[in-house]
């Protein structure tokens, strides 16, 4: 009798359970939805906040549009700050409609608006409704990380959200942080007519990058953009100043109309994960194996919530792979070495693979640095600021890492990413004819520098 009742209820649960529940409606969530449909599965997607998540609303898209307008202004075009915001809003709403709203309507999905949390290893609750699932993908993204600074919360501050949708007019902005977002906002605001200053805790800006890149970028932003950069800064307090907000540090004080906190992002893990048996990693993100499976074998995670590199294209890749691994047991992995990334100041900063320091721990590493002044295209453009650094394994001659600060670096880095993905050697790059004159030749030159003095070469020597 008992067995019969149990059997019936287990079967019912199985039948009621959704094949796939995706939590989050940003890049990773959408990529998972699309791949699920391609595999013949209709998922449930639960999303909280504005459809599309960070990238399209308060991340890549609006920041890159604002940087473009800032660039046009630096070239002499008339760009008024308020008009720039309107223009940015137009791109954001258009792209959100085309890339998320319309896409959602064209796929087979049950979309639920609301905040989900786990109530058991195979069920979540949203808006009071319980949803059971055979598989889950957590793609809940990240939020600004706010450091614990005395007075900061009382005095108030901006994050990327307010900086991209300013609630009031300001004339000056003090930025705490010295990584990608801090640099992008500093140049964007400065070029659009608002004074900025950067206060960075570590000894250099971009502390995880090659040190040559850190210093070349600092030099450029200070001398060409007129942005003061202070490093090795320890902020002790934030308080009301005479006119604005004052930041007190070990090196003195700064007062500005507003403070932008750009000190990294933290994974959104507020989902009652203990109930599901999902553990966190040392970065505070969701712990996954290299197939993106969490400590609960039926739950996967993708995107910023893992707390690894926080990048739009990586979030998309992970979303698709998580869906394939969850639904088709595909055992797919991501080649982490070849994930490129860029900082979209002008000129761009971009990287892929290992730094020399990282490579030296694993290989007999070697490197070359080539200045953009050796690159014909940079000279033709009269934008020959910056450098490229390439790291190789001196034994196999394989390319391990490339970092570039220079015109179109965010485009050029894709070639370096492919080279690393295919585990190419320096000869593979040298033997590939590159278009003359292009900035991509800088990568080839940096590789040729392992064999000859590139300062003593005519154009296009092979």
């Amino acid at each position, binding site marked *: 009798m008992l067995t019969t009742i149990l059997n019936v209820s287990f079967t019912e649960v199985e039948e009621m359970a959704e094949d796939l529940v995706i939590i989050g409606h940003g890049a990773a969530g959408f990529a998972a939805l699309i791949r699920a449909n391609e595999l013949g599965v209709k998922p449930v997607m639960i999303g909280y906040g504005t459809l599309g998540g960070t990238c399209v609303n308060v991340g890549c898209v609006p920041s890159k549009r604002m940087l473009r307008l800032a660039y046009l202004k630096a070239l002499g075009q008339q760009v008024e700050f308020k008009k720039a915001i309107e223009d940015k809003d137009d791109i954001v709403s258009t792209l959100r409609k085309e890339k998320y709203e319309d896409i959602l309507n064209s796929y087979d999905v049950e979309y639920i608006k609301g905040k989900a949390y786990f109530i058991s290893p195979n069920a979540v609750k949203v808006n009071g409704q319980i949803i059971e699932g055979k598989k889950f993908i957590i793609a809940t993204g990240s939020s600004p990380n706010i450091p614990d600074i005395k007075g900061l919360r009382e005095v108030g501050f901006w994050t990327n959200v307010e900086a991209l949708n300013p609630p009031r007019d300001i*004339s*000056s902005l*003090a930025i705490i942080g010295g990584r990608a977002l801090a640099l992008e906002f500093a140049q964007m605001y400065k070029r659009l007519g608002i004074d900025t200053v950067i206060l960075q805790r570590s000894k250099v800006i971009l502390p995880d990058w090659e040190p*040559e890149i*850190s210093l070349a970028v600092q030099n450029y932003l200070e001398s060409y953009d007129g942005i003061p950069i*202070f490093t*090795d800064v320890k902020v002790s307090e934030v308080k009301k100043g005479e006119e604005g907000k004052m930041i007190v540090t070990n*090196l003195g004080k700064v*007062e500005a109309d507003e403070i932008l906190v750009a000190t990294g992002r933290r994974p959104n893990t507020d989902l009652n994960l203990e109930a599901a048996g999902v553990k966190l990693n040392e970065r505070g993100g969701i712990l996954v194996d290299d197939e993106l499976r969490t400590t609960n074998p039926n739950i996967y995670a993708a995107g910023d919530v893992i707390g690894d590199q926080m990048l739009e294209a990586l979030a998309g890749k992970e979303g698709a792979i998580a869906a394939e691994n969850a639904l088709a047991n595909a055992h797919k992995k991501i080649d982490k070495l070849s994930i490129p990334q860029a900082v979209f100041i002008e000129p761009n900063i971009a990287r892929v693979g290992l730094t020399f320091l990282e490579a030296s721990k694993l290989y007999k590493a070697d490197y070359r640095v080539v200045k953009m002044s050796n690159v014909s295209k940079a000279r033709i453009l009269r934008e020959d600021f910056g450098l490229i650094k390439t790291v190789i394994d001196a034994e196999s001659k394989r390319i391990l890492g490339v970092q570039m600060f220079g015109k179109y670096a965010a485009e050029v880095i894709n070639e370096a990413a492919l080279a690393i993905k295919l585990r190419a050697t320096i000869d593979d790059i040298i033997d590939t004819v590159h278009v003359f004159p292009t900035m991509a030749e800088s990568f080839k030159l940096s590789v040729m520098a392992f064999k000859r003095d590139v300062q003593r070469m005519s154009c296009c020597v092979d």
Partner: protein
Amino acid sequence: MKLRIDMIKENVKCENCGVELTEDNIYVMEINGQKHYFCCSHCADNYIERKLH
């Protein structure tokens, strides 16, 4: 308001010989998980020697 900056500007220097570092002479080394900046690998080695003795 205009930015009001009352700060000491400290540029990054070689932790061994004190020379100011630029993109042309910067060398980074990790010691006990912390990044240290030098003007060349010799200065980095000297620094470690000094710390050891």
